[in-house]
């Protein structure tokens, strides 16, 4: 099959080729996604209004988008920090749920007095880091695939979440399985612009710190070496194991913080719907941002925009929210497929064409 062409690995793609490939893939992915939307019954004429005006240009819409993007930035950091060391964190949801659970526990059991809110955030990060720890250790000690372990840990976390919501955390005055609503001291401050809250500051600070650590601290250099060639890093005396573990735990902590930001910033209680699809969102955003923290906020806004638009399309045109997942899947698939153009050179096979 395809015997008429041979592939060669490119030594290095020029910046122009790389940029064009990226832009082309993004455009193609978007176009295909729009085609899916139209096929699902959204009139072509309404697309611009629904996907751009209502989501990014109207103040209320932009506020919704920014609020939605806040935990996504943290989820994307959770994916990117791990992926820079070639560790596939496919259990972001699990770490997020643990973070949300820990933050909720701090709130429900009134721990920490005046430091309640900061403690909730710290607990959220600790919960996320704790939940990723087994996959990190199993990978480092025994070479067990982190792909499967992080996935399974998510399933366990979800069951734990349900257990708590139907049991110890349940708000008895309410029919649905949710925790009681938090008190005022347990909520992140709002800025008077929709639901945009202090979580945004936390997320942006986290992004800035990650960018600083990777770009300027000795840790970042070590991480690049360990991620690219652990053997060489060891021979140069870099503490490869410590760097790897630190990065993975930081990733888990970011996912946990996302959970904390959701419960303390927007939901004000723990529910089953917290952080749904965040694993995939995080990985898509990290892939689109090429694991560079600096690009994450922008890309997160874009993906959050899809969700906000999806919610309104559901109301106005009866389009399922599953469409948003499809659109993201298409964009990611086109993007990774397009790497072909920058990785390989196609040549006609010898003897077929002179």
């Amino acid at each position, binding site marked *: 099959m395809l015997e008429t062409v041979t592939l060669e690995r490119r*030594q*290095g793609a020029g910046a122009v080729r790389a940029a064009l490939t990226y832009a082309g893939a993004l455009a193609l992915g978007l176009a295909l996604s729009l085609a899916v939307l139209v096929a699902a019954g959204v009139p072509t004429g309404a697309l611009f209004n629904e996907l751009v005006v209502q989501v990014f240009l109207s103040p209320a819409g932009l506020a919704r988008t920014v609020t939605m993007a806040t935990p996504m930035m943290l989820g994307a950091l959770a994916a990117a920090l791990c992926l820079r060391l070639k560790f596939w964190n496919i259990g972001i949801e699990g770490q997020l749920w643990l973070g949300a659970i820990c933050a909720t526990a701090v709130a429900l059991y009134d721990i920490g007095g005046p430091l309640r809110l900061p403690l909730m955030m710290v607990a959220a990060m600790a919960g996320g880091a704790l939940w990723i720890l087994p996959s990190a250790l199993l990978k480092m000690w025994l070479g067990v695939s982190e792909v499967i372990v992080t996935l399974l840990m998510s399933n366990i976390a979800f069951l734990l979440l349900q257990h708590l919501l139907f049991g110890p955390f349940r708000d008895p005055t309410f029919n649905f399985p949710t925790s009681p609503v938090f008190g005022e001291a347990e909520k992140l401050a709002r800025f008077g612009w929709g639901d945009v809250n202090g979580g945004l500051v936390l997320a942006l600070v986290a992004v800035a710190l990650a960018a600083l650590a990777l*770009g*300027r*601290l*000795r840790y970042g*250099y*070590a991480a*690049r*070496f360990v991620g*690219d*060639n652990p*053997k*060489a*890093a*060891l*021979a*140069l*005396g*870099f*503490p490869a194991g410590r760097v790897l573990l630190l990065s993975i735990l930081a990733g888990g902590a970011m996912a946990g913080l996302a959970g904390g930001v959701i419960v303390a910033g927007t939901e004000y209680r723990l529910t089953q719907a917290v952080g749904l699809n965040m694993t995939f969102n995080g990985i898509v955003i990290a892939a689109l941002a090429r694991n560079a923290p600096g690009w994450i906020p922008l890309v997160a806004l874009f993906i959050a925009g899809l969700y906000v638009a999806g919610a309104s399309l559901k109301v106005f045109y009866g389009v399922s929210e599953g469409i948003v997942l499809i659109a993201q899947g298409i964009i990611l698939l086109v993007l990774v497929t397009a790497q072909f153009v920058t990785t390989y050179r196609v040549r006609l096979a*010898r*003897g077929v064409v002179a």
Partner: protein
Amino acid sequence: MTKPVQTVAPALPGAPSALRIFGASKRFGDHLVLDGVDFDLAAGEVHALLGENGAGKSTLMNILSGIYTADAGRIEIEGAAVSIAGPSAAVALGIGMVHQHFKLVQPFTGRENLHLAAAGLPLVPRRAVVEEQIAAVVKRSALDVNLDVPVARLSVAEQQRIEILKALLLGARILVLDEPTAVLTDAEADRLLALVRDLAAQGHAIIFITHKLREVLAAGDRVSVLRRGRMVLASHAVEDVTRDDLSRAMIGDQETTQRRRSGSTPGPVLLEVTGLGVRDGGAAYVSDAGLSLRAGEIHGLAGVGGNGQRELAEAILGLRAATGQVALEGRDLTGLSVAARRRLGLRYVPADRSADALAPNVSLAENLAATLVRTGALGRRMVWPSRVRQHAAAMVQSYGIAGATGGGRRPVRLLSGGNAQKVVLARELDRDARLIIAHSPTRGLDVAACAYVHERLLEAVARGAGVLLISEDLEEVLALSDRISVISRGRIATTPDGRPDRAQIGELMLGHA
């Protein structure tokens, strides 16, 4: 350009021609790898082909096996002009290659590998037919090897026999063996030579590529020598040539080897290795190895690859757990991390640059600055990229690293082999280097780059550092070393004066001394 005049010895009287190559040329970029090469092979003949690394042997054989096409020249097989369009065409023409790196699926049994290979036959025969053919080939060639255990569990020699069976099963009449004895023990090599003679007696034509003159004399009918892409000695009867003729043809008219360094005054003992052992799983890579090295000295460690060199180097650096003792300037290194050992002045130039020394996708500048970044020399917490680039620019200039455009921002994998090695040297041969372990530091480099690497190592020694030069290249070891040891199956040995000559080294390599 006139070719060196050579008298071509006739093949075995009356033997039909199996293969003729006329004027084969091949160019890669600016580099003329093969320059009008003629070659002649008769049925029933073992034709030894000699040449140093980079002489063009593999290119010639790749043309024969259809991996490359020649830019010019003509190939005749059994008297008929042919064009070898690809690997399958080569197989169809009856050419069988036994590469140095075996093409066997490791978890498969020998039989499964043979069945898989049979799938490449033009008219794919039925399973039972393949079974019969395997039995017939095994019987005819008298190759005995267990075909029903996974190949991974067989010895290298046994795997090699399966490779030969594979070639025969595919109907090879011309067999090309690419340095087949390099990976074998002496007894195994002898057995292989006998087998090769048997196969020739059955009418196969065999090209036997080797470095070792002993094997040429023992098993060859005729011999040819390639040097820098030209056939400098074409199809001589083995009886008519002497060892001297062959080594002169291989190396050229310049004096063979002369020790460049002698009589330097050695300093105090720098490195003292005693009773070092490295085991991994069941295998012992290094056993009871001892070695000492003085400041201002190059200690050459010769030996055939895969005899524990890598494991020894990694144990000294602290990358591998080991028993025994390693002391640097009298200080016991046991229990120290790689970083701590490097702090004491230990440096490492590994054999495989891209796998063990460089981060290929990380920028040139960061690769150059890696150790300085790690130790905090470029900033205790914050490392400004501008400082990294400054350091890189200085190194690029003083080591003449070519291809470092854009302030060293490009990934280091884009550099050529010689320039990549300069990056490693620039990093490892700093002022604080006390002991440099250089493992095959010139492997795969061109002549100019080799000379450059040697110069830099000698400079480091002149500054008072010590170099442990681990190399398979005997000429390199002889030319640079003050003292020489030999590693063979994980054991290190030398002569009482520590200066074995070529013949003594040969014996030590065989573990005879």
